[in-house]
């Protein structure tokens, strides 16, 4: 764990007069699980949106190291009209959403096929005439979809509408869908929100397996401290838009500033 996959340098994000993030700095190591924690409204999701290309940071740089060298996320977003958030995903960052965003009236498999559009996008004519190339690409995409359904234990739900799935499975499906874009870094926004304890344990296993088996770096925003402390290698603590602590779970848990701002309360609750 030497080379950082993602470097956040002096990032400040303003909306009009409101400062959501101020001068944020941290690094995400390759293959690590990094957790962003902090009270609601501390600016975690805003930073996530900057990293995944939905907002363009007002100041500072966010750099992703890819096989083709470093990519500046902010620079990707400067395309006219198109914006460019899709280029961020293509560079290798995938994400899930705090309030699940599935294609609810499409089937589970279709959700995963959409995510693989870059691999299946053969030309129009070959699709219209069902050429051999097209059929092979489609079959491969379906296989890959089922592979990820298997990984997420969702094979039984393959041909159900995504919107009909129980909440916990929708969360897993969203992760599977993000994985279908073959990311280097996956950003999970409160993946355990709304899950019951058994589902949370399953989720933590899933996250660890993804990291171990698929050469993946994980960033996660999470309020469930058990989950954060048990799976993460690195914790970044936010409060009022600034980073107040940055280190291993143990270091952070013992940081007096963190205890004062946030963890103190949580730990008491957890202990009870």
């Amino acid at each position: 764990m030497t080379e950082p996959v993602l470097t956040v340098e002096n990032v400040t994000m303003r909306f009009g007069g409101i400062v959501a993030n101020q001068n944020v700095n941290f690094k995400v190591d390759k293959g690590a699980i990094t957790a962003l924690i902090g009270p609601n409204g501390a600016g975690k999701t805003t930073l996530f949106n900057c990293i995944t290309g939905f907002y363009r940071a007002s100041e500072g740089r966010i750099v992703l190291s890819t096989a083709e060298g470093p990519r500046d996320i902010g620079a990707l977003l400067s395309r006219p009209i198109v914006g460019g958030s899709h280029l961020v995903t293509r560079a290798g960052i995938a994400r899930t959403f705090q309030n699940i965003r599935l294609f609810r009236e499409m089937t589970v498999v279709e959700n995963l096929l959409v995510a693989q559009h870059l691999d299946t996008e053969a030309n129009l004519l070959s699709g219209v005439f069902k050429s051999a190339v097209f059929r092979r690409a489609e079959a491969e995409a379906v296989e890959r979809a089922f592979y990820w359904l298997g990984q997420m234990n969702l094979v039984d739900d393959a041909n159900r509408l995504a919107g009909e799935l129980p909440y916990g499975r929708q969360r897993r499906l969203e992760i599977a869908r993000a994985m279908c874009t073959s990311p280097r870094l996956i950003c999970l926004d409160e993946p355990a929100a709304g899950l019951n304890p058994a589902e949370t344990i399953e989720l933590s296993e899933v996250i660890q397996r993804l990291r171990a088996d698929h050469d993946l770096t994980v960033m996660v925003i999470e309020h469930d401290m058990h989950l954060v402390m048990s799976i993460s290698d690195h914790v970044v603590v936010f409060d009022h838009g600034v980073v107040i602590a940055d280190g291993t779970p143990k270091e952070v848990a013992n940081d007096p500033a963190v205890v004062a701002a946030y963890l103190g309360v949580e730990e008491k609750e957890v202990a009870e």
Partner: protein
Amino acid sequence: MDFYILAQQLVNGITLGSIYGLIAVGYTMVYGVIRMINFAHGDVYMVSAYVAAITLAVLHSFGVDSVPFAIISVLVVTCFITGVYGWTIERVAYRPLRGSTKLAPLISAIGISLMLQSYVQVAQGARDQGVPVLVSGALRLGTDKDFAQITYMQLVILVASFVAMAILTYLISYTTLGRQCRATQQNRHISAVLGVNTDRIISSVFVIGAATAAVGGVLVTFNYGSFNFFIGFVMGIKAFTAAVLGGIGSLPGAILGGLVLGLTEALFAGYVSTDYKDVFAFALLIVILFFRPYGLLGRPEIQKV
């Protein structure tokens, strides 16, 4: 000489603009509370023109000659009946669709728009209708050859629009209903939790919007004298343009947008081309939505992810 032409276009533009503003109120208020473009609003305005002419004719048949009395009673009756239209439309075509797909209310609104046009056409005939001239004469400025004028009817329009807007502003800023409207506009669900009867507020907004459009309908009818079942369409798009121009959801924005649109349109018609003045208005709409979709007074909405 140029000065008088310019002055004349400005007078016409401001009169026209205040009408646009009145009708834009309906779009902007409805959009504020339920985030939907009430596509049938232009046709509600069209209905009000018919109701105004019918009321005036009935008053005449009862031998009412006093012009101020006639104008005021036509205004009251038309606002009431058009308000009922607004209430009914919301109740029948929009309320059952809350929580339906995104496109459903819009398509339903188009349905209502077609229904109103066709209903009026079937009931009243397709021909142009008219009202007699109630107020004639004008204030003139300049010589006999070169002059700018403001007709007394235009003065009535300006006064009536101003009064209507003042009442509306009072209603929204200082009454309980207005407070609840603004709360519902901010967050419908929280308002409901806090005990605001949001269904009632939404209904009121439709009634207020329709009644304000009716004021515009009465004034336009008296000013131009002629109308048909199709006038709601173009007026609807223009008033919507005014609402967007000012920043949809904002009441002062609707008035400002109306005036800006009225003025630019009058200047375009005066100096460039009358044939293409509607094209100008529509093109303006597209340009605004492209470069400043939140309008002159609106704030850019932060996209929630």
